[in-house]
């Protein structure tokens, strides 16, 4: 407890110091996702479940003599698992600053809040990419094992398929991110996310059956069904249109409203 070691070491003039680079901000955001128990376990459980789900699938395929499994089958399994966890990751990136009030420090060290939010989105994309790479590698190993156990192996997987996988994972993460930006509350964002991914499609289905007019509108507002052609790499021109429009409603709109609020809101 001495007061003598704070001597400034060549203090900087206020204007000439370079600002914090975006890569530094992203690096710090990535660290913030693994240095708490919640973040660490979320990432750990996601990775573990991807591996476990693939192993379980391999065992079932081998035991039941499934003959038409291939690389793409394993990737689809990964995609199911990660599409549950990546939105939660996206939500946590945002809400940890409000739930634990660390935003006071974060937005003081980088007062340009748009840069903080951008770096969080980029950190989320980096982690999603990590999940994708894990899925590709685990799928590769499983497919080789499947070949050894069951054979013959299929590698029939196009670039559109991988592209669809990458895009759907990024969308899943960003959908959670956007809702979190809108609500700034973990529980609310998670509940709304799962309501709109699990409950809403059923309601849309029902409405489409009841009202013939709605059946024409539905593809443009149903974000979930708009994403399904991504999974089997069957995106057509109108599918892209549906994805774009429903994405504007469910992803861009909450993000824009949330960001507008975050930019001006008082951080307490």
């Amino acid at each position, binding site marked *: 407890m001495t*007061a003598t070691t704070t001597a*400034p070491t060549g203090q900087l003039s206020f204007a000439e110091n370079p600002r914090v680079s975006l890569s530094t*901000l992203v690096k710090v955001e990535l660290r913030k996702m693994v240095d708490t128990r919640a973040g660490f376990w979320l990432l750990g459980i996601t990775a573990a479940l991807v591996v476990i789900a693939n192993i379980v699938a391999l065992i079932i395929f081998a035991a039941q003599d499934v003959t038409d499994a291939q690389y793409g089958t394993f990737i689809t399994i990964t995609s199911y698992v990660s599409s549950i966890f990546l939105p939660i990751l996206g939500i946590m990136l945002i809400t940890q600053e409000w739930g634990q009030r660390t*935003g006071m420090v974060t937005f003081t060290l980088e*007062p340009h809040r748009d840069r903080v939010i951008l770096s969080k989105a980029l950190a989320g994309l980096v982690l999603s990419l990590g999940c994708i790479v894990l899925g590709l590698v685990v799928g590769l190993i499983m497919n080789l094992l499947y070949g050894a156990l069951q054979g013959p192996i299929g590698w029939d997987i196009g670039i559109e398929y991988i592209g669809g996988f990458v895009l759907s994972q990024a969308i899943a993460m960003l959908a959670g991110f956007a809702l979190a930006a809108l609500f700034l509350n973990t529980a609310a964002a998670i509940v709304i996310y799962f309501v709109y991914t699990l409950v809403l499609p059923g309601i849309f289905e029902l409405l489409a059956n009841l009202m013939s007019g709605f059946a024409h509108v539905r593809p443009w507002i149903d974000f979930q069904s708009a994403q399904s052609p991504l999974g089997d790499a069957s995106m057509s021109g109108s599918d892209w249109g549906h994805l774009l429009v429903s994405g504007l409603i469910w992803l861009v709109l909450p993000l824009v409203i949330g960001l507008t609020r975050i930019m001006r809101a*008082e951080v*307490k």
Partner: protein
Amino acid sequence: MIKIENVTKKYGAYTAVDDVSFVAQPGRVTGFLGPNGAGKSTTMRMMVGLTLPDRGTATIGGLRYADIPNPGRHVGVLLDASAQHAGRTGREVLVLGAQLMGLPITRVDEMLELVGLNGSEGKRRVRNYSLGMRQRLGIAHALLGDPSVLILDEPANGLDPAGIRWMRGLLAHFAGKGGTVLLSSHLLHEVEMIADDMILIGRGKIVAQGTKEELLRGKGSFVKGLDPAALTAALQRAGIAATPYEDGLRAEAETVDIGRAAAAAGVVLTELRGADGAGLEDLFLQLTADDQRDVLTEGAKA
């Protein structure tokens, strides 16, 4: 230097900060004093851009806070010691700050040592910290970037008397090197111990500002006699205004004149002193009396 000019912040019909202007000078510790809810924290948040003012400007070193590149290297900020992720260790909180500001990791351990958080305390999660430890961590975080300006909201809150003395030494040293320190408190004696300059705020308005000496001076003397009635009469004859205060009198004169008047009347004094600290306390209570949430009853000072 911190410069606040005509800053106003309203929440609906309620004016939290009302046309506030002041300057915190380099080389000095400026105390920002006021009762709870007087607008201290809101003013400090506006300095660092966490709250947007409705009117007015706040600059640090001539720049708006948002225009300072890598502001952590210039301005050390502690607004709420509890606003940290409870699940991170104290050391991890500093590592994140150091990484963001582009500082070597060695700086983290230097700061932990400086604020008296030893190795095992640094490795504990913030959840298990006492308020005093959180304040020390917050001060370490504020000093991390080797800033020239410090903005600290209630930094002494939760520190024990030894801790407050330690912080006084730390801040005096910081100001002695030319640093600017602005610290808030709702406790007069804390600010009195630490600050060179004082700004008093009540109900969002600045009610007094100046050096501590200026604010302390000219508040008369405190005198107590064996025979209060005779003393009052003696002072009256000498033309010295006096009012009852605690168990004696508050007289608007220097101690030497009161002594003379008492000697001339042959009144025995049991106590005679400048009204120093007590004067400032009165000033504080009087200036903020309207803003006190508790009704002050006679004799129940502070």
